[in-house]
């Protein structure tokens, strides 16, 4: 059996998960500080992929990065191509998963007690220290939840991915596109294997989160 889709899905989800984790947090942090009107507009744009059908996101991505369109052509000249490549999958998964991270992180930041940051500043702590050592730990619950949701979404991405990178066995096939492909060609047994693999991964992720949460809670109680 060819395990390539598993490996491909995992690397796409992992890389886009990391990308979305940092960009989502930074956007949430800085956009929360912008004037109301600008904030509202950016909010709509950044959350749009969450409410649009993934195929519409895929269409937009093709309109931008497609090989017959200016940006896509420009990128190809410097050797970067998102259409029909596995890192195109990273792009698609990132765009679709980003709003989940951004939204949950923003909610967490907005409920943060700002006096903690202020007192840190008057004590002489650097803004970087305050962000990573005070703000982030205080918002850990929300940020962790956002990261898990984003990773899970990236792992299961189908619509935008299939439009941008299609299905090429051994090159762009992911678990979700493989399941569809196998079912379409009547290979129910093959599809079932990948369905089970997917279930196993999802269960493992959720279990890990629960364990992490419990350890955190115990750690805090023990001191």
């Amino acid at each position: 059996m060819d395990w390539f889709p598993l490996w491909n899905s995992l690397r796409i989800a992992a890389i886009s998960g990391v990308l979305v984790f940092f960009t989502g947090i930074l956007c949430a942090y800085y956009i929360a500080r912008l004037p109301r009107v600008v904030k509202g507009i950016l909010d709509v744009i950044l959350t749009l992929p969450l409410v649009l059908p993934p195929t519409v996101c895929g269409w937009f991505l093709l309109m931008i990065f497609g090989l017959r369109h200016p940006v896509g052509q420009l990128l190809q000249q410097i050797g970067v191509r998102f259409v029909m490549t596995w890192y195109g999958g990273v792009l698609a998964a990132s765009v679709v998963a980003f709003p989940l991270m951004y939204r949950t992180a923003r909610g967490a930041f907005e409920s943060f007690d700002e006096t903690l940051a202020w007192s840190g500043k008057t004590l002489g702590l650097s803004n970087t220290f305050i962000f990573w050592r005070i703000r982030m730990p205080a918002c850990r619950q929300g940020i962790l939840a956002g990261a898990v949701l984003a990773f899970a979404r990236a792992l299961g991405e189908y619509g935008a991915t299939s439009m941008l990178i299609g299905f090429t066995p051994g090159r762009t096939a992911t678990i979700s596109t493989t399941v569809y492909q196998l079912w379409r060609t009547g290979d129910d047994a093959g599809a079932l294997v990948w369905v089970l693999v997917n279930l196993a991964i999802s269960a493992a992720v959720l279990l890990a989160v629960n364990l992490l949460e419990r350890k955190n809670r115990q750690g805090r109680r023990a001191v």
Partner: protein
Amino acid sequence: MSLEVCIKKRLGKFLLDVEFHAEPGVMGLLGASGSGKTVTLMCIAGILRPDEGRILLNGRVLFDSEKRIDLPPQQRRVGYLFQNYALFPNMTVERNIACGLCREKDRAARKKAVADIISRMRLTGLEKHRPHQLSGGQQQRVALARILVGQPELLLLDEPLSALDSHLKDQLVVELRHLLKSYGRDALLVTHSRDEAYRLCNTLAVMEEGRLLGMGGTREFFADPGTRTGAALTGCKNIVDAKKAGEMSVYVPDWGVTLDAGKPVGDHLVAIGIRAHHFGGAIGENSFPIRVVEEIEEPFEWTVKFMYETQQDGSMPVWWRMPKAARPERLPDRLGVSPENILLLYQ
């Protein structure tokens, strides 16, 4: 200390416009909520940026809108004690305090200073505790230790006692007073409690609607608050419109009496204040017939509400308060007040 503040800041409809020069020791900013006390502290600490003005601390410019100087809070060396103490919940007591010493690069020196202040602030044994495991008083001591360990030039205390139960409050006022003395730090204390202000501050400034109404020594201020707001903040129960009647006397239309003030009265007098415990049946001066409206028993005092015989219908009864032991068998039908106990209010 020399702290010079002259700032303007607009926040929506609210306009802060204050100018003062703080005396050494503890200065109190007294005012109702929403009068701009906290905004003033935040501007001094660098958390809020004033629209214009200057802030100087011991000759150092912290903020100057003309010279475009605006030191970040990290460089101001101003300690800020928040109302909720703002301890970092994810760190132990020890780590919290070490955060106040982040300017010190030498690890050994830092460790020693932290250990030092932990024992001085009676926090020994709590080093590994987290803030939520501490009592209110312990939290306050940790917050103060964290600030004092960095040796700030000025302490800003924002209603440090309002989050506590009243029995704890009395204890902590004494403790805070002792600490401020033994550390010799100059401080600016924001409060709306006259007891806190009286016990902790050498000088007082009164704020109302973003402006400073006046400032002076604490004792002098309680003896002669000078304004309606000031009188109310010092706990004066009877504040009533009044007019100048003669060189040394005032007429109170609501009460229908003319009182001897015992001191020259200014032309622009708007009101007078009489503290509830300054009335007495045996006082011969300013003595007028009264009738009792209501008697209220309190833990250690009696409050008697009365009306002058000449008092306008519908006006507020006057408060008279005496210790329980001093209550006469029969309440008198005349009450007097010494001229020196009549507060002349001009605003």
